[in-house]
């Protein structure tokens, strides 16, 4: 970690960097995509927290969401791996150098479909990192198929209906043994930045499920109900390949409050901010909270569960302070005498 120095001017942070030092490439995501809002918050929070960008890694899977690391913190090393396999690559990277911070970016398809196994085993290990799922209920990059977090009954542009119950990423993380579980909404910058800060401060795996609308695909045609699968004369009026530009959604609401977010297409989403008296250190309370809001048809947002003392994988591994990736050859290759002993054992 770089030693903090006094800010040079108002626009620099404690380590003397400007916000632009935290920016990435220009986004190639759609205008209005929730993922862009998450990117902005990451930039803002890391700047605010004066995190040295060179001391952070960005790891992701494959999907629109997984492209996001390219759009923040150019000065941080990034690893855009395989679809659904961010957790393993991140685990190896972090364990090889646990002096680094890590932000993992994934999507709902990336995490809850193909990546379910790795996701569960990563949280179980409590590897130190922030694990963000930009959750839109669809596969954005492959053009709008359902993911496992899609609401039951949801109908999409292509006319198919999702008949399966959704997987709740927070619930999965929670019972998988996660030590930090929170949910937010991409369009709620205040809550998102607060939770991001908390996540970055947490020592283990901090799972942050961010509802992040896909403005293109989880987004119905003007007359969705009349648009029946496979029937003739029911093609949409406009070109299916046409992607309208939309504004990013911004909302703000208070603890305990339920807010309904309306989308351009007329659909809506009910968010419920956790009451202030919720005890996030109780797993049972957290379980109950999610399960109850599920039956009420709302998404509970806020810090759902945290166990700040749960040992991380680094702690239980017996690792010292020197990161494995920084060992010297002398630390890595045992001496010639030791080999003589070994040979003697087999002689």
């Amino acid at each position: 970690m770089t030693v903090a120095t006094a800010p040079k001017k108002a626009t620099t942070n404690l380590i003397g960097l400007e916000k632009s030092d935290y920016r990435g490439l220009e986004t190639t995501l759609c205008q209005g995509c929730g993922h862009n809002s998450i990117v902005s918050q990451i930039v803002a929070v890391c700047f605010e927290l004066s995190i040295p960008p060179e001391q952070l890694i960005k790891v992701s899977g494959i999907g629109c969401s997984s492209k996001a690391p390219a759009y923040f913190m150019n000065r941080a090393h990034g690893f855009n791996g395989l679809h659904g396999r961010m957790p393993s690559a991140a685990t190896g990277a972090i364990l090889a150098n646990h002096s680094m911070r890590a932000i993992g970016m994934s999507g709902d398809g990336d995490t809850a479909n193909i990546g379910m196994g790795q996701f569960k085993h990563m949280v179980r290990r409590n590897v130190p990192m922030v694990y963000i799922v930009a959750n839109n209920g669809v596969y954005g990059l492959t053009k709008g198929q359902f993911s496992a977090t899609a609401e039951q009954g949801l109908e999409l542009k292509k006319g198919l209906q999702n008949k399966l119950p959704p997987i709740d990423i927070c619930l999965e993380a929670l019972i998988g043994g996660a030590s930090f579980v929170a949910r937010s909404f991409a369009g709620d910058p205040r809550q998102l930045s607060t939770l991001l800060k908390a996540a970055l401060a947490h020592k283990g795996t901090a799972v942050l499920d961010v509802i992040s609308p896909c403005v293109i695909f989880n987004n119905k045609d003007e007359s969705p109900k009349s648009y029946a699968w496979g029937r003739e004369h029911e093609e949409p009026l406009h070109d299916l390949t046409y992607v309208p530009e939309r504004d990013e959604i911004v909302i703000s609401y208070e603890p305990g409050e339920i807010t309904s977010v309306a989308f351009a297409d007329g659909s809506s989403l009910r968010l419920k901010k956790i009451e202030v008296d919720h005890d996030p250190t109780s797993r049972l309370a957290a379980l109950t909270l999610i399960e109850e809001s599920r039956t009420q048809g709302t998404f509970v947002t806020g810090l759902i569960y945290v166990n700040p003392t749960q040992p991380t994988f680094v702690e239980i591994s017996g690792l010292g302070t020197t990161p494995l990736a920084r060992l010297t050859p002398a630390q890595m290759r045992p001496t010639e005498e030791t080999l003589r002993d070994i040979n003697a054992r087999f002689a």
Partner: protein
Amino acid sequence: MSVQSRLAVVEKSGVTRKVNDFSIVVATVNGSGSQTANGVILRSLFAMGIPVSGKNLFPSNIQGLATWFTIRANAAGFVARTDQSEILIAMNRTTVIEDLKGLAEGGVCLYADDMAFEKSRGDVHYYAIPATRLARESGAEASLRPYVANMAYVGGLAWLLGIELSEVESALAAHFRGKAKAVALNFGVVQAAHKHAAENLTKTDGFRVERMPAEAGMILVDGNTAAALGAIYGGVSFAAWYPITPASSLAEGLQDYLPQLRRDPTTGENHFLMVQAEDELGALGMAVGAGWMGARSMTSTSGPGLSLMAEFSGLAHYAEVPVVIWDVQRMGPSTGLPTRVSQGDLLFAHFIGHGDGRQVVLLPGPNECFEFGWRAFDLAERLQAPIFVLSDLDLGMNLWRVPSFRYPDQPMDRGKVLSAEDLARLGGFARYKDVDGDGIGWRTLPGNSHPRSAYFTRGTGHDENAAYSEDPQVWEANMARLARKYQTAKGLVPSPVVEHMSGSRIGLVGFGSTDPAIQEARHILAQGGLPSDYLRLRAIPFADEVGRFLAEHPVNWVVELNSDGQMHSLLKIYFAEHAGRMRSLAHNDGLPLTARRVVQAVRDEKEEER
């Protein structure tokens, strides 16, 4: 005179004396605890200076099925598997009839006296040992008795062959790491059996051992342990794995030795980390993540795991991340025979992953598991690539008499890594630019504090700066650079080992665990007037030397343990011009190769020529 009979001398008594030249098969059931007994026999012979090998033929189960342990002792140093054994230690009543049938003419059968079976072979010498009684009388508590019963055949055999009891005791001491009570208990049974035999049995056969002048610097070790130790001396710092036969003992070897060898002597902190992953996708994923971060990182697996690693292998190859992947091959396809050997993953490993890409594959012989264990890391970091080391069940799990491990004779090659200071000097860098003409770019490691050190590692198409690019020329240029890197690899990987015989017109090409069988075959062929040259491949890409070798011989036998002739296929791809000079000797029945199989193929073809 053939090797088999070289040491056979007819004694006055008329019994053919066979000294230090036979093989023993111990037929037991799985889970009966005979491994210690077998190991003790093997080590005692080894300690007497006699070249030996030990091979365990076990079923894919935990308890109750037939298992055979074969020990071959051969004064001339030929310790490949043979088709028949001369000495049977019969401890399994369900297989004894068949085991007896398989015994060599005039062989020996040492059996537990409470096992009733028809002594159908008149040419065999039978010796009964009261194993159960001796175990009961040993003073061992009831739960340990079935186990110490195995020591009875050790004692019986020691008497039969003249194995020195002091060496048996030393072997027990080594096995139990000095634990006196255990040594005493077990050695007691050995002695009792020896005594019983001496007093009650009459030796009618001619098999014997005799101490030989000890060849200095030999050790007895399995390939997986050797590989694990090699990796440790190669500086492995991170290993992720998933259990699978026959690779598990490689990771477990790491688990055993890392705490001894890689804990900080002053702080006691671990300078290593092992993760048992949730599966092989996770195992390689973690290893790749750690390799990217800059740690020496590896995984070990067998066929089914390798299949699951296809996608991550392709990423490591294309994103150019150093990582070492040991594949301890077992019989495939599919789950196949998990406890049988094959060299069947060659083509799959070399071409692993969709799209273009040819992987660097190392092919250790019995003597090289340790060396390739460390060398693989130098190659991985130098080439910024996954290095596949193809061992096999026979190499990995069986005990081999090999030269003692040689300390690495080269400093670690950490490859092309730019530090923050380098960057300050250079002002920046382009990750995938071929500045040196060898196809290998310079990389930075995450954590490098220079503001321009970061780049984006990706499996998607990228330009020299690691930026995403769909540009056709950029793609082509990058692939051309990777092809250059493959050429560079050719000059870095271990070169083949060539052995000549004068007057030879036959070439033998082999690799890995078949080496002893090929060596023995050459000896036999030479004695029959057919000298041969031998090229032992040690890596892909193939050195140009391989082409020269092929060109030198009208007939080159490509010897391998698989059905499809996979090495033959690879050689046809890379040395198509010599295809006409190659013959495939692809044998694949799950057992280690025998010299006979090679001799026969070569002779048959010679017959045909006539």
